[in-house]
């Protein structure tokens, strides 16, 4: 169980990235499946070549940013549909990731990583390590929330909210999308880097389906916590990521195999998407809320994406 929470907190970094594109920019970005592995590959190869693990993780962040920027450029300057732009980058990254590693798998056994001191101290898989990972994710949540309240971050939120309007106030929505995609995939790359160090290897297939995990985290979190404040929404993403891992863990305990995980992910996302629409569920939620929202607001609540 503790391992599940640890993994959840590491994947939360990626989920925060998905939150930026999916919720803030209202952009379904599939680059994630590629950029996650790119981050892992860059970090693993750097570490094997003696680079400091902190620097290696930073490089992974930058590599993810570059991947996101490519999707952004394809979409804005190339006028390619957002979904297709993401798919194109994702597929291209598969080859690039193989080029970076030179092979399908780069082991990190015996290397000094961000995780190895924790493992050496014997705190991995304990409440201490959970505390450390939780603290890291809190710092990242704070950073994301801070950014979204700066002038630049607010322009980005407005870009996802009402493009026409923010253009009329002098913001290039193209630039905002490129920046948002870059930051998002930077976080995804960094998450991939930490996952590689945690599990002790980078693998070319490790990014497959990561976008689903990200979406599941965002949507599950959203179903649990109100989206009224950005900091709550961002925190909900972290909680969603952990819950997702716990559900997977429960499914495995219940007898399902590791190979079934993608199916479980997909089913989980479908449930999280459909459940809030089911009237019986709405009634249950309402009975728990102390102050029911006014009827006239219900339509706007659906639109609320921040």
């Amino acid at each position, binding site marked *: 169980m503790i391992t599940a929470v640890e993994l959840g907190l590491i994947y939360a970094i990626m989920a925060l990235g998905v939150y930026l594109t999916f919720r803030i920019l209202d952009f379904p970005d599939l680059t994630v499946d590629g950029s996650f592995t790119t981050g892992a590959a860059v970090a693993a190869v750097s570490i094997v070549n003696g680079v400091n693990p902190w620097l290696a993780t930073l490089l992974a962040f930058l590599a993810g940013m570059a991947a996101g920027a490519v999707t952004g450029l394809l979409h804005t300057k190339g006028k390619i549909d957002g979904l297709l732009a993401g798919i194109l980058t994702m597929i291209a990254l598969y080859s690039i990731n193989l080029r970076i590693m030179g092979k399908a798998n780069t082991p990190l056994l015996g290397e000094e990583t961000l995780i190895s001191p924790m493992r050496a101290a014997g705190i991995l898989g304990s409440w201490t390590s959970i505390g450390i990972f939780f603290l890291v994710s809190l710092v990242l949540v704070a950073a994301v929330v801070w950014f979204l309240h*700066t002038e630049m971050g607010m322009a980005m*939120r407005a870009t996802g909210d*009402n493009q026409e309007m923010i253009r*009329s106030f002098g913001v290039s929505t193209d630039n905002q999308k490129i920046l948002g995609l870059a930051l998002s995939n930077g976080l995804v790359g960094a998450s991939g880097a930490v996952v590689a160090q945690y599990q002790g290897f980078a693998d070319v297939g490790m990014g497959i389906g990561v976008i689903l995990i990200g979406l599941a985290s965002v949507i599950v979190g959203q179903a649990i916590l109100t989206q009224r404040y950005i900091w709550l929404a961002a925190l909900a993403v972290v909680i969603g990521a952990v819950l997702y891992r716990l559900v997977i863990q429960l499914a495995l305990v219940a007898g399902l195999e590791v190979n079934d995980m993608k199916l479980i992910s997909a089913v989980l996302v479908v449930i999280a998407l459909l459940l809030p629409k089911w009237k019986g569920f709405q009634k249950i939620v309402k009975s728990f809320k102390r102050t029911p929202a006014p009827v006239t607001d219900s339509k706007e609540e659906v639109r609320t994406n921040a």
Partner: protein
Amino acid sequence: MLEIKNLSRTFFPGTVNERKALRNINLTLGNGEFVTVIGSNGAGKSTVLNMVAGKLQPDAGTVTIDGKNVTKLADFRRAKYIGRVFQDPMAGTAPTMSIEENMALAYARGRFRGLGAGVGAKRRELFVEELKSLELGLENRLKTKVGLLSGGQRQALSLLMATFSEPKILLLDEHTAALDPQRAALVSRLTNQIVERHQLTTLMVTHNMEQALQLGTRLIMMHDGQIILDLDSEQKQQMTVKDLLGEFEKIKGAQLDDRTMLQ
């Protein structure tokens, strides 16, 4: 302040749907002039507005704002000179962001947006002062999401956001058309107040002839991509809706009733 020269645009050239939206339009607005534009559907009113805003490119002609030729500038690049209010009350604000955040978005018009806080204590004071001028009590609801406001409130906020940073040109595109009569009257009144207070050079498209006569210092009537009537403040004051219709018939020799005009 605003100079439109020989502006022309043809939609769908070379096809059966070819339509000359603008035929060699010339229009100059002096500093602080408030021009209302009326005309039947397809007369080219919105086309002119969209070309000033940079949403549409002309086939020929130039748009000059404050001596600067902006014809080739993208809409967001010329936004620092132009405040806009749209017909749709939902279009001028960001619904998931709060009132004060929307004000902050407008406050940074045309400037570089960096990593400073969007809403600081000092700015909030300014926003409260500005919101008070609307007399809608919005200054007490700074943290409310704009999506929860009514159409009239949102349009009033849009108007304030478009104007309080004092753009060189204010463009109003039938900004009261989607509101009920009461709200429309409120937004009309606010428009008058705000334009006078900031002495804004304003171009307002409307379908409502009554409003076109009430507001502004000059009236223009368009038909078939041309300006067919241009009344200064004095002439405008003596006009009634009936006179306007008469003018229209006289010039175009076409039978038109109020209904067609309002369509």
